[in-house]
């Protein structure tokens, strides 16, 4: 199906009006040697039924988290999404619109973004938030670039407890501008080594990045890190990949974070095999003109009625071109809308309860696993809904295979990212994991004793 309304006759009538005999004449400006002389070598078209079956076939070759008990996290979280979220997000007035360049026809999108910006400020404890970034990892990289714009310094302290893929993205992004990344190790607590951070700080330090909960699920001591960073005149960038933690953990803003960037997928967005996700981005008010990304502001119309518009766009590529604060154009608007709807439904009490539920389930799982003789919990720091488990007699891969045989998708094998942790698994427990699932996990893990 081509989804083209105009028939041959319609096209004929238009070609006549244009005054050409065939559409070929309209392509005459393409030099003959640049034209494709054959048809595209692609599969023939499928009917809607054919397509549906084909796609069901492909989808059927993937497991989904409804079929297996899954304990995967590591930056992508399986949370409950109320049915109302997709009902609302997929109202076509929302999802078939473009970026709201014309505010008079886009007040729905714009008010929702304004609400989203407010929610992100409330969650992070920051003063200003943008309309979204691509994902958590690129948001973090953009935060570093922004810090660099603010203070012009060149060195960045980047703990190893930050999500390894986020670190790779950061390196990929910032190295072209000559910024240097200093990776600092973690302690036995699973937290970033404060001493080493301090040792790395100097008056060349642009920013200290810290993820909390970090990649190991451990909450960092933001107060001390903030103090150290600020004492050196550096900015503190806090990264949050599991924002459900905002419901029960003190906000980065309360510790004086300068920029908070992270991944908002956990709110209202499906796992989607890794994307689209939602980069959120917030900072202190003072830095707003250095911010990347779109911002929506409240204003009024000619009659004085309130309305919303894209604003402060002199920061952006379409105005500032090579001097823009970022090259971002299309962002993750619909993911931000999903988060806004989900957060509205959760609300003040629900978000806290959700966070507490994650804490409780995780505590239950940790306690149970810590009783298994063949495992230990290497990190002592406080965790939210993820934690590292050391496998004592087998390899993590063996454990995962054994679990899979019981219909359980185990944890991320940390050796993939940390050679020194190649005997460890990173497990995640959310409100979606029932007690039976956790018990089954422990039982299956214990099977290897």
């Amino acid at each position, binding site marked *: 199906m081509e989804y083209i309304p105009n028939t041959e006759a319609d096209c004929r009538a238009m070609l006549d009006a244009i005054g050409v005999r065939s559409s070929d004449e309209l392509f005459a400006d*393409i030099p003959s040697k640049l034209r494709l002389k054959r048809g595209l070598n692609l599969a023939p078209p499928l009917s809607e039924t054919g397509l549906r079956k084909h796609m069901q076939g492909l989808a059927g070759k*993937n497991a989904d988290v409804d079929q297996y008990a899954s304990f995967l996290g590591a930056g992508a979280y399986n949370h409950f999404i109320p049915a109302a979220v997709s009902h609302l997000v997929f109202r076509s007035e929302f*999802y078939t619109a473009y970026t709201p360049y014309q505010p008079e026809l886009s007040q729905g999108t714009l*008010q929702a*973004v304004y609400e989203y910006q407010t929610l992100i400020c409330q969650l992070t404890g920051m003063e200003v938030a943008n309309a979204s970034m691509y994902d958590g990892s690129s948001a973090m990289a953009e935060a570093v670039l922004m810090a660099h714009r603010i203070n012009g310094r060149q060195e960045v302290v980047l703990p190893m407890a930050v999500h390894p893929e986020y670190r790779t993205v950061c390196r*990929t992004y910032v190295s072209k501008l000559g910024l240097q990344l200093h990776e600092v190790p973690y302690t036995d607590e699973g937290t970033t080594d404060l001493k080493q951070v301090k040792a790395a700080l100097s008056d060349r330090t642009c920013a200290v990045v810290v993820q909390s909960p970090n990649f190991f699920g451990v909450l960092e001591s933001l107060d001390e890190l903030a103090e150290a960073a600020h004492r050196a005149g550096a900015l503190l960038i806090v990264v949050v990949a599991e924002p459900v933690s905002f419901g029960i953990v003190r906000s980065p803003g309360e510790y004086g974070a300068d920029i908070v960037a992270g991944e908002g997928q956990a709110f209202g967005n499906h796992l989607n095999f890794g994307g689209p996700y939602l980069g959120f981005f917030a900072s202190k008010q003072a830095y707003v003109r250095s911010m990347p990304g779109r911002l929506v502001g409240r204003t009024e119309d*000619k009659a004085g009625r309130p309305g919303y518009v894209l*604003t402060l766009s002199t920061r952006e590529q379409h105005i500032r071109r090579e001097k823009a604060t970022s090259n971002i154009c299309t962002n993750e608007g619909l993911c931000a809308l999903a988060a806004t709807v989900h957060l509205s439904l959760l609300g003040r009490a629900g978000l806290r309860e959700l966070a507490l539920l994650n804490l409780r389930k995780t505590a239950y799982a940790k306690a149970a696993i810590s009783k298994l003789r063949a495992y230990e919990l290497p990190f002592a720091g406080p965790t939210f809904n993820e934690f590292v488990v050391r496998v004592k007699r087998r390899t993590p891969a063996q454990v995962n295979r054994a679990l899979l045989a019981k219909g359980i998708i185990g944890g991320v094998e940390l050796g993939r990212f940390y050679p020194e942790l190649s005997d460890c698994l990173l497990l995640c427990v959310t409100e979606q994991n029932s007690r039976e699932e956790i018990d089954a996990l422990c039982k299956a893990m214990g099977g290897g004793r």
Partner: protein
Amino acid sequence: MTDEVRDKSSLAPLHQRGDGGISCGPSATGENEGVGVTGLMFEEPLLFDQGSPGRRGCTLPECDVPELKADRLLPRKLLRHDIPGFPELSEVEVVRHFTRLSQWNYGVDTGFYPLGSCTMKYNPKINEEVWRLPGFSCAHPYQPESLIQGALELMYELEQCLAEVSGMDRISLQPAAGAQGETLGMMLIRAFLESKGSPRKRVLVPDSAHGTNPASSAICGYEVLQIKSGPNGRLDPKAVADAMNEDVAAIMVTNPNTLGLFEDQIAEVAKIVHAKGGQVYCDGANLNAIIGISRPGDTGIDVLHINLHKTFAVPHGGGGPGAGPVGLKAHLAPFMPVPVIEKKGKRFVLNEDLPSSVGRVRAFYGNFAALVRAYAYIRSLGPSGLRRVAEVAVINANYIMNQLKDYYHLPYDKFCKHECVFSDARQLPHGVQTLDIAKRLMDYGFHPPTIYFPLIVKGAMMIEPTETESKETLDQFIAAMKRIAEEAERDPELVRSAPHKTRVSRLDEAKAARQPNLRWKGNAPKTATESS
């Protein structure tokens, strides 16, 4: 700030709160302004100005583990106790809120949306159904390879399709949007040139380019040298030759370009740039115009990005998400971001082992749900359908161009490809400019075209109809544009004061920028810096 602080528990009188008004057919008496707005459409306060303490909009899964208190689970100093001002709404309130907001929006499903350069084509409904299949939407990116074979196969196949369509050797599906594709593409060029000795310093960008091109060059550490377009709106090989030297890393060419014209000298330009060791980046945002007819990869370029949310019918979502895959020639393959998807026998695997890789531009593998839609779209249309897309998109654009050229100034009077660009030169003497014309179109039920871009046309109106609009719709749009041209002469104030029929009239963007109000603050905790 004070006007935003509202007591949400007290009942604001109707005329203040402005709730629930619907309004204003032609027979409106106007007796009750302040209550009604427009149409079957409601005033809807912010989330934060609604609700009541203790309300909630969803139930969470039951707690089936011991209900320990928070301070037994986390150190007290880490605990947060409340988020003042956070919404407290029931499900019905949330549903009505966003339903009403949606009704203030204009989408492709509402009507004609000829935003130039944005390719706002119709988004087939079946694609929205298939990406939601649990095997796609509920798969975790770190699931064991044996449990994600369908996802990998889809991505692998999509790569093949896009390679064939674009004429490139390899495709990276990682970038989340066109601009991220540009970033990645320029990084590939940089890495390649570094491997040859030096990344070089400068990137040539035509003056008609989209703002993301220079911005992406800058992110990759390059200076930007602007190249003036030739008098026919296209790149002049001479100008490129003049600017080209061993300091120049690359040229970024948009083809078809933002004037809707095919860069007929692209092969020549590529030869010039390659001769001096530079690379050619192609911005493929406008691929829709030539799909199946000409392949960028056959025109001498090295890297390219494609916007799946344009040519491949992924809906734009009111701002995103999209996907901006990058196509590249073989010599750049060693630098591709990880992981790459490979087929080993009948299995599909993720290969992270690319020693010269530039790294990654994002976590995980890309905007997968967008990839699913693009793949479904390609499979629906097949080779002949894709070619027909380009043909009809170009016929539609030329029809509009032809029908309006006696009414609006056409800076480049040629056949166009996917879009045509007019200016307000004829209306300016009446004091009517492009912005006014755009706003007035709203009164006729159309979304305006892209305006004031490309920058090289003063007062540009860039009209891209796409292939999914019927002749009748085009005729209605043409009639409205003609009428506006007439109005601009007869009654310019009518046009200048437009729009007249939208929920809000023209919004004060200057005020928004002068006094930024970027969030509701009615009840937020004040931090030190903010109150200072």
